[in-house]
C-alpha cells in the first residue's frame, strides 16, 4: 500500500534538505514548521498503516528526493515506528483497564445484630487504570461465588484456544 501525500505536503517535505542551513539562509519559521508537520504526517501515517519497507520506499521515491534523503527517511521510519504505534494505540476509546488485584480472607465473628457467627468472606481490592488515573475499588464475595468467578473466567481464557478463534486469528493476518 502506498502512502499518498498532498501537493502541499510534498512541497513542505521538499524544504527539509535545505533546513540544515536554515540559520544561514534565513528560511522562515513557517517553512520549518510546515516541514516538521509534513515529516510528522509521513511517519505517523506510515506507522498507523504499518506499511512495509518496500511500500514506504516507493511512496517516498515519488517525491523525487535524493537517494540519501530517501535512505534517511526510511531509517527514521524503521527506527521509530514501534514507538509511534504504541503511542497511537493510547488514543483509542477505552474502558478502565485491569491493573492489579489484592485479596484478603476474612471471617465475620459477630455483628450488632447477631453474635457467634462464622461467616467467611473474601475481600478484594481491584486496581484499575483509566486515562492515566489509577482507581482502587474494594469489593467482597463469598466462597461459592469466588469459585464460580474462577470457573467462568477460566472458560473465558480457554476460548482463544478453540478452533473457531484460531481460524479467525489465522485469517485476519
Amino acid at each position, binding site marked *: 500500500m502506498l502512502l499518498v501525500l498532498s501537493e502541499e505536503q510534498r512541497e513542505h517535505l521538499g524544504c527539509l534538505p535545505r533546513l540544515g542551513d536554515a540559520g544561514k539562509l534565513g528560511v522562515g519559521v513557517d517553512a520549518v514548521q510546515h516541514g516538521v508537520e509534513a515529516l510528522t504526517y509521513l511517519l505517523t501515517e506510515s506507522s498507523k498503516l504499518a506499511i512495509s519497507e518496500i511500500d514506504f520506499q516507493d511512496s517516498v521515491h515519488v517525491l523525487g528526493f535524493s537517494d540519501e534523503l530517501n535512505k534517511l527517511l526510511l531509517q527514521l521510519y524503521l527506527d521509530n515506528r514501534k514507538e509511534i504505534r504504541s503511542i497511537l494505540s493510547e488514543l483509542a476509546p477505552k474502558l478502565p483497564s485491569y491493573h492489579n488485584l489484592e485479596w484478603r480472607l476474612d471471617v465475620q465473628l459477630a*455483628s450488632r445484630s447477631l453474635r457467634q457467627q462464622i461467616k467467611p468472606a473474601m475481600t478484594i481490592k481491584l486496581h484499575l487504570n483509566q486515562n492515566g488515573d489509577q482507581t482502587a475499588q474494594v469489593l467482597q464475595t463469598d466462597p461459592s461465588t469466588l469459585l464460580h468467578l474462577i470457573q467462568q*473466567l477460566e472458560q473465558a481464557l480457554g476460548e482463544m484456544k478453540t478452533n473457531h478463534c484460531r481460524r479467525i486469528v489465522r485469517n485476519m493476518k
Partner: protein
Amino acid sequence: KKCVISNLSILDDPDLKDIDPAVLKHCHAAAATCILEAGKHKADKSAISTCLEDCKLDRERIEEFCTEYQKNEDALEIILGSIGRSPLHITDVSWRLEYQIKTNQLHKTYQPSYLVTLNVENSDSGSHPDVSFSCTMEQLQDLVGKLKDAAKSLERATQM
C-alpha cells in the same frame, strides 16, 4: 435499614379486636424484642424458658412460645446475619472476548481483548452499577491466578 418487625397487622386481627390497641402494641413490641434478643445471642430453649419464667408466664405459654420460636429460628438467624454494612458484594461475572482489528488512529492492531463485568450489589439498596474493565489475555491470566490463590487459602483455612 431493614425492618425486622413486620407491620402491625395484629391490630386488624378479628380475634384481638376486643383488646385495647395500646396494650396490643406493647405486647407485640415486647414479644418482638424477646425474639430478636434470643436470636441475636442464639439462645437455646432453656435460656428462653428461664427468661419467660422471670416474666411470670405460665408453663403452657412458655412451651408454645418456644415451639414457635424453634420453627423460625433458622430463618431468623439468616435475617439477622444479613443486617449490617459490607463492601459491594460481587454476585456474578460476565465476559466478552473480542479480536481487535483496527482503530481510526491505528490499523492492523490484531490482538485479543477481554471485557469483564462484575455484577455487584449494595448491602443497603440492593442494586449498584456494575464494575467493568478491559484486559489483555495476560492480565486476565494474572487476575484468575490471584483468585485461585485466594480460593486455595480459603480451602486451607477450612481444613484447620
